[in-house]
């Protein structure tokens, strides 16, 4: 795969073909720490096809989260280009990135990142608020998403009235409510015990089965083994990119 990318390098500054959801070319992320420059990513390039199930692995501090934030349009690369769904997003403005985050990306965080004072339903509604969906449709779609993660009976609970696994499922419902083209998860099981982690991973498996493209970061090999492809990162570079099945 790696070699494929390299041979096709030069002409691919143009828009990628339709089945490529993500195309990254020579992504750099450099943090200026006073006089010192920290290279969190040093020239990362890869493609992810529609419907793929990808795990990103690597030691702590290798740049996995940095990469995920770039893919998720939460951050912009210092250098390099990135296409999402055929659109060059590495040069968009803040508000355009917000639009992409809202419509094209579902992000699941290790720490859930739910609004503590809002109910599960309202948390799931949030992305819909920011694309102006009317209230009635919003509630309907949020309920549907919560049903999908089997939390129909917990809609009115606040996050602190839910278990860790349930919270993460609310977060997954929120990520899916706008029907994004890609689901990103940065260590989604990192804050969960093993059994709950398995529950969440089963949910991801099902979501992949039903046609979602998934990229997740994990430390654990048996979780990564569920994916169809594992990208290993070390010191901000792609170390290995292997298919598992």
């Amino acid at each position, binding site marked *: 795969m790696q070699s494929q990318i390299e041979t096709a390098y030069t002409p691919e500054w143009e828009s990628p073909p339709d089945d490529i959801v993500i195309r990254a070319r020579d992504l750099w992320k450099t943090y200026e720490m006073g006089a010192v420059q920290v290279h969190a990513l040093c020239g990362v390039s890869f493609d992810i096809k529609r419907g793929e199930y990808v795990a990103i692995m690597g030691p702590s501090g290798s740049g996995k989260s940095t990469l995920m*934030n770039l893919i*998720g349009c*939460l*951050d912009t690369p210092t250098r390099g280009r990135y296409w999402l769904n055929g659109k060059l997003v590495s040069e968009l403005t*803040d*508000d355009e990135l*917000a*639009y992409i*985050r*809202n*419509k*094209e990306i579902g*992000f699941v*965080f290790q*720490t859930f*990142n*739910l*609004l*503590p*004072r809002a109910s599960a339903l309202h948390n799931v509604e*949030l*992305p819909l*608020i*920011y*694309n*102006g*969906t*009317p*209230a009635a449709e919003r509630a309907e779609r949020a309920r*549907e998403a919560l*049903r*999908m993660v*089997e939390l129909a009976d917990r809609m009115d609970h606040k996050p602190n009235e839910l278990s860790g696994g349930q919270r993460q499922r609310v977060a997954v419902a*929120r990520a*899916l409510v*706008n*029907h*994004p*083209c890609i689901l990103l998860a940065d260590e989604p099981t990192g804050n969960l015990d093993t059994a709950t982690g398995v529950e969440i991973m089963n949910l991801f498996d*099902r*979501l992949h*089965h*039903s*046609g*979602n493209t998934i990229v997740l970061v994990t430390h654990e090999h048996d979780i990564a083994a569920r994916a169809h492809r594992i990208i290993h990162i070390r010191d901000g570079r792609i170390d290995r990119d292997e298919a598992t099945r």
Partner: protein
Amino acid sequence: MEVLNSAQALPQPRRASTAEYLNAWVTAREAFWLALETLRAHRLRSFLTLLGVVIATTTLIVVMSVINGMNLYIANHVANLGANTFVLSQFKWAQGEQAWLKARRRNRPIRISDYEFLKRNLTGYKVLGATASMETGTVIRYGGQILYDVSVTGVTPSMEDIGEDQPESGRYISASDYQHASLVCFIGQDIVSHFFPTLDPLGREILVNGTPFRVVGVAKTIGTVFGQSEDNFVQIPLTTFRRIFMARPSIDVSIQAWSAAQMPPLEDEVRTLMRVRRHIPYQQSDTFGINASDTIMTLWKQLTGSIFAVTIAIVAVFMVVGGIVIMNIMLATVTERTHEIGIRKSLGARRRDILTQFVIESMVMAASGGALGVLLSLLISRLVNLVFTSSVPVSAIVVGVGLSAAVGLFFGIYPARKAAQLDPIEALRMEM
């Protein structure tokens, strides 16, 4: 697996039109409810924050209400001496302190003879009337009951056509009463409610400073002005007044013109006649006062003008202080809720959405301070009404709440901009 069917049914993201996406209304409404929620969650903190705005609004509305109330009084009572009527009296009613001190030395009372002189020499008036009053030191009795300090006024029968005192039952002082200096009286509603709560007062005798007077008429209710009842009076014929109480009273002469246009020439005529009668050299000022409603209106407008200027200064100071406090608390709120802002941004909130959220929050906060001020001023206005006069105009409520909201908007922009400009990653990293 069937739970996932819905996701399969919509594999392609539904593309929202730009117009739909730009629809700020949904986020604004959301922000509004969120703001109310936040206010409720931090009731005490919000109240303390809003104190400045509350005081400013209260001050503004109370002052506006008192002025409004006094305006109504002026309009209803002073300005309404009777249509096209002016009053000749010893002093000019509304004038500066200096002028009044001077007038007190120079001016001489108007006497019955002056009234009769005018009646003989004045041409073209509609009605001429005279009154003499005892405001204090009067004692009215009926049965075992006593009323003190009732206004006892001697009147000419013509006053019925000029003043406000219209009979509700019975009749006014008649020409015959006047001629015969009869012991009859025309009483106000306060006297009725004190002495005759259940009886018909007509034909009964009350004692005015010991002299019995027969009630021939009862006036319609007039109401209170500056907390003073205007219904607390006994009117008797002026001739009787002179016979029993005061042989040579100082009187007021009321002159009614045929039309508003006729007022100035008629005033001039009265002035000229009086100056001739009193032999006032032409370079000296009048030794009497001619009072028309515009005399009072002019002074009143000057007075309210300066009251307003002071009020606006006070309100401005409080509003600015209140606004700065709000700005401060909003800055704290933004810091406190950085993580929330990060979450919202990660889900697609644009700068403008965050800006709207916090500006609306600040406006709702300030406006509820304004609303509290309105409530408080309604309460104060009621209390004021017990001893003075006050009437809350609707415009004051609108101005009060609107002004506070504007202050919230102005002072909310800076904190909201700070919130809007936060970087999503850094904001997310801030744990609560």
